[in-house]
């Protein structure tokens, strides 16, 4: 495992693997991993993968699904990958209604490069590139990507989940399954944001990270389905 103790990526990987197995799609799935902490996601789920350039996973997934419509295709990304450098690819893949699922972990920082500010960093939150706390006037506002995705006609299912408790993990798994089933049916694109912790990036302990997430992130990033059609 190349993830840090307390990181949410591992739990999310397990859920995806379980859903693929339950759907009997192990031999029919192609995953796209990002640049970010999940770059080596392909080491943990036994399917064929492609590892994309930073932010471009939705473009890869678009082409793969269009050329292999009978396959289950999903991208796995971070919040910086999907909501900063890859915003154009994200918006357009979603709005073209690609029959794919985009899953991303929002840990409010750039985990892989050492905890810098991300598009999702909260106002007042300290990171190494906003050491005095994010200020609206200087760094602008945190980005709520699912809320943005909801306004796009191409999206079918948009949800925000978390994996901080057993109950949350169960709900998150159901959401992943729904999105994957949708991807095989068509009818639009699917986006799942999963709130996650990054004790290394946040410079804290795994336990305190969970607490910080509950106290700060849930207020701004409300968990639940945002669009389901």
């Amino acid at each position: 495992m190349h993830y840090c103790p307390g990181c949410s990526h591992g739990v999310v990987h397990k859920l995806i693997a379980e859903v693929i197995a339950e759907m009997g799609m192990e031999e029919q799935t192609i995953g796209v991993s990002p640049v970010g902490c999940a770059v080596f996601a392909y080491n943990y789920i036994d399917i064929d993968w492609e590892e994309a350039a930073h932010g471009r996973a939705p473009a890869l997934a678009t082409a793969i699904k269009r050329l292999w419509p009978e396959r289950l295709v999903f991208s796995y990304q971070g919040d910086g990958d999907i909501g900063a450098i890859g915003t154009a690819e994200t918006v357009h893949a979603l709005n073209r209604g690609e029959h794919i699922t985009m899953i991303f972990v929002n840990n409010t920082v750039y985990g892989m490069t050492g905890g810098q500010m991300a598009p999702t960093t909260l106002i007042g939150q300290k990171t190494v590139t906003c050491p005095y706390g994010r200020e609206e006037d200087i760094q602008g506002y945190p980005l709520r990507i699912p809320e943005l995705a909801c306004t796009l006609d191409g999206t079918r299912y948009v949800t925000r989940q978390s994996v901080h408790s057993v109950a949350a993990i169960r709900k998150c798994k159901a959401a992943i399954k729904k999105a994957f089933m949708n991807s095989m049916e068509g009818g639009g694109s699917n986006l799942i944001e999963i709130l996650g912790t990054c004790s290394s990036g946040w410079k804290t302990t795994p336990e305190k990270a969970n607490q910080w997430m509950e106290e700060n992130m849930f207020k701004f990033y409300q968990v639940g389905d945002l669009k389901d059609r």
Partner: protein
Amino acid sequence: MKKETVLMKGNEAIAHAAVRCGCDGYFGYPITPQSEVLETLAAIKPWETTGMVVLQCESEIAAINMLYGGGGTGKRVMTSSSSIGIALMQEGISYMAGAEIPAVIVNVQRGGPGLGTIQPSQADYFQATRGGGNGDYETPVLAPASVQEMADMVEESFQLAFKYRTPVMILSDGVIGQMMEKCVLPEQRPRRTNEEVIAECPWAATGWRRADRKERNVITSVDLDPARFEQFNLKLQAKYKEIRDNEVRYELITPEGAELQGDINKVEADLAIVAFGSAARISQKVIQLAKEDGLRVALLRPITVWPYPYEQVKLLAERVQGILCVEINAGQMVTDVQLAVQGRVPVEHYGRLGGIIPDPAEVYEALRKMWHK
């Protein structure tokens, strides 16, 4: 569709050739002077005939990454753009070189730097032949000089791309893309079935059917282990050497205007021109002007500008008094000619910039001055 003789633009020929050679997907973004490629594909709707995917993307960045994604599954994928768009694609091309992804990228060059001009140019020679993105990699680059070659090089590029698992570039320019010429389009060849793709590309990410292979396939360019990654880089370099050893293509035209494929030792000439693409077309006229004056000029046209015909240029230098390199840029390929010639005879460059196409008379004037020096 049967083999067919048509009159069309180079850009249109590329589009028709792509469909007919069984291309699976085209991903592109509009830019002059190559928009006719996407426009032609949109008009002929190959998704209704061969099942080929055609998609107008949100940017050239998206387009090249769709090639990465699609090429990584073993499908025949292609994009086209012009200079600025190709600059945006460089990160993706580097990833594809690193992940060893076959694909075809067409650059119908226009003048730069920056937004520059929509008029033709050959100023992306360095970018194309020196690996425009990051890292130690090379890309085979074919330079068409006619509409016929625009069409023929699509299949030729796919062959190279899959043989060596590498992106291949067709380095054209606004002259060849926009001019109309007679052209023979090949017979329609069926797209490979999924089963054929899986059989031909055992390395591709097609979904891991346990019956087909023991290992799953991961398309990636990342490796954080220095020793292993050095070995991988050496493997890439060995592949580039193999391409250099086997895939050099060029055309040689004697002062009489005859084609002399291969035998440079039979060239009897005073001077030689080395030129590629549309500059080579102009240079054919220059040879005739020279002949009328009794000056014997041979033309060597690199068809692959990477790998470069260094050996052939070197042999040619031994048969002439000097070499003029004609390019529609400020002097890029001339550095390769100098490398090949190693000071044996004088090497000069003649080029125009800003989107101006050199006139045969002005090129001949430069040649005449060189002769009388």
